[in-house]
């Protein structure tokens, strides 16, 4: 029969190449040595170190900013009194010109005390005699009502020299006015509630004392979230092995996500966020007891095999047909029944980038938001392992096999709906909890759950 055997000389020639060796150029090592990755544990340690340093740095900056405001609070407002000699022929008197917002001149009436508690306001109690020389100044910062009644004017007869002096006084006055307002603004800004734009001003100030004011608009704002999210994907589905056999993949899987999120707070009600996170499964395992029909089984260790079937990226459900066949050996659907148990385990990592839109509400100090978004998931790595044990009357066979997930989806899109609870710890820092439902939008196998639940917890730093 030997003469009928088809021997292809080309095949033999090619096969001889299997153990061939060939020297690469020396430049390859030079280029490669610069690209060798570092130890992963160092990388992880570095991540935490840098993360802690970042949090510490941001907290320090926030702390310093607060302290700086407090320092401004302590700066005494200059209360220098300037006196001008008026060259009035009929009347020669010294009229004090008092800087507005001078602490000595700020009203302490009960009505204004109430007002002062609620809003950044200072009053200048102007004597009638000063009305003529005080300039009417628009409030350039739209904050703090300065009540200067300039409607009453009295003609002053003054010389050219006096006018120059008065111009100088006016100029100094304006400058001081603006400087003082700026200082008061800084002091008052600190007194504002955490979400100043949401709380409408209603100071109950007596009418006519000052014009109505609009709330201070601090938006748009940028804020940064750093945190971690745990996901749970329930799998209670049957996976079909073939027409006659199915297994119950009843083990749930958990994944965790970590990363940074940049929030763009458009106004008090709307926010848009973008994040880049890395998601890895904590544990993935499907354990099965399946009575499969085998006529015989050839189980070997280190079986070369390839994972086939469609992989449901998010849930971890896998069509296990050929895996079982390859792990357990040759598989015959008709024949003797052999009891087989197998376990599929492994882990994978996706890099995820999501875009979310938030609609926010306020409840006391807690801010509640409803959020919806989409995310693009890109596969970084995946490793799976199958462990199969076959029990028959005469023997127990045990096999392990590493699986190549070449059918794993490299990219997929998912959608998410959730809530976002934000509770301020400091004016610049809040703690955030966010329960979320994830739905894989890409096509997945029928019978496989593509819905997961997650809980995010983290810190939100507001950049003012």
């Amino acid at each position, binding site marked *: 029969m030997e003469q009928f055997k088809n021997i*292809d000389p*080309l*095949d033999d*020639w*090619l*096969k*001889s*190449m*299997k*153990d*061939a*060796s*060939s*020297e*690469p*150029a020396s*430049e*390859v*090592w030079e*280029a*490669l*040595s610069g*690209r*060798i*990755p*570092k*130890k*992963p*544990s*160092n990388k992880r340690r570095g991540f935490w170190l840098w993360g802690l340093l970042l949090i510490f740095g941001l907290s320090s900056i926030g702390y310093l900013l607060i302290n700086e405001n407090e320092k401004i609070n302590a700066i005494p407002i200059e209360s220098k009194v300037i006196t001008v000699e008026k060259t009035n022929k009929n009347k020669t008197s010294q009229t004090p010109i008092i800087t507005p917002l001078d602490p000595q001149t700020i009203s302490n009436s009960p009505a204004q005390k109430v007002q002062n508690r609620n809003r950044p306001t200072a009053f200048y109690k102007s004597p009638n005699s000063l009305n003529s020389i005080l300039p009417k100044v628009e409030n350039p910062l739209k904050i703090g009502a300065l009540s200067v009644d300039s409607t009453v004017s009295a003609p002053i007869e003054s010389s050219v020299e006096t006018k120059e002096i008065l111009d100088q006084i006016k100029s100094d006055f304006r400058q001081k006015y603006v400087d003082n307002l700026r200082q008061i603004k800084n002091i008052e800004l600190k007194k504002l509630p955490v979400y100043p734009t949401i709380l409408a001003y209603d100071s109950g100030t007596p009418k006519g004392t000052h014009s109505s004011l609009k709330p201070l608009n601090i938006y748009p704002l940028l804020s940064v979230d750093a945190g971690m999210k745990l996901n749970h994907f329930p799998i209670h589905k049957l996976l079909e092995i073939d027409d006659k056999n199915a297994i119950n993949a009843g083990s749930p899987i958990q994944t965790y996500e970590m990363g940074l999120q940049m929030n763009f707070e458009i106004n008090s009600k709307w926010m848009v966020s973008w994040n880049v996170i890395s998601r890895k499964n904590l544990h993935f395992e499907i354990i099965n007891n399946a009575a499969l029909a085998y006529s015989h089984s050839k189980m070997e260790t*280190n079986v070369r095999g*390839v994972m*086939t079937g469609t992989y449901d990226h998010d849930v971890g459900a896998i069509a296990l047909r050929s895996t079982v066949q390859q792990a357990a050996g040759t598989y015959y659907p008709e024949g003797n029944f052999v009891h087989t148990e197998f376990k599929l385990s492994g882990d994978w990592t996706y890099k995820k980038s999501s875009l979310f839109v938030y609609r926010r509400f306020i409840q006391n100090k807690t801010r509640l938001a409803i959020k919806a978004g989409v995310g693009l998931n890109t596969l970084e790595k995946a*490793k799976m392992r199958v462990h199969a044990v076959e029990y028959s009357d005469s023997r127990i066979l045990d096999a392990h096999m590493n699986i*190549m997930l*070449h*059918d794993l989806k490299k990219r997929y899109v998912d959608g998410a709906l959730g809530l976002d609870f934000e509770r301020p710890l400091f004016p610049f820092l809040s703690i955030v909890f966010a329960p979320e439902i994830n739905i894989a939008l890409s096509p997945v196998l029928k019978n496989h759950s593509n819905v997961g639940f997650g809980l995010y917890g983290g810190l939100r730093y507001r950049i003012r």
Partner: protein
Amino acid sequence: MAEKELQILEGCRRGDAKAQAQLYHTFKSTLFAICRRYASNEQEAEDWLQDGFIRIYQDLYQYKPTGSLKAWMRKVTLNICLKHIRSKKKLFPVLDLERVAEKLEMPTTPEEDPQEALVPILQQLPEGYRAVINLYVIEAYSHKEIGEFLGITESSSRSQLTRAKKFMRQLIEKKRTKNIVK
């Protein structure tokens, strides 16, 4: 696993640059030969070799030394080669093979080593054909497995192998004729 391999492995896991260099220099020839078989040219093979070693250095921390280190490294390199091949848009371009074979310029330097002589011929093949020949004849994978690797059907793998061999024979014939003329 040999004592020397274990030492290299432990050194690499510690991030020892000397061990990393030793690992490279011990296995570079074997792995480069694999890359050459799958790549279109030497430059591409060198790039893939680099990628393969980077993956090896990355995965060494998870590698359990139960089997042969060399076999594991070969497998990793092969996967890298297949990953690159899969990323090509057209694995099996519709070509008139005979016409292409006529137009192709073969290397003129005479190679004494028959294995070396085959490499440039392999590199002249379109990506998909080259992969099928390598996987089936050299790596001894089944057509079913090759189909799964390359995202083609089993029968397609079988027919592409026939075409690839035919193409290869034409190229070898052409090379022989050229050498005789010289």
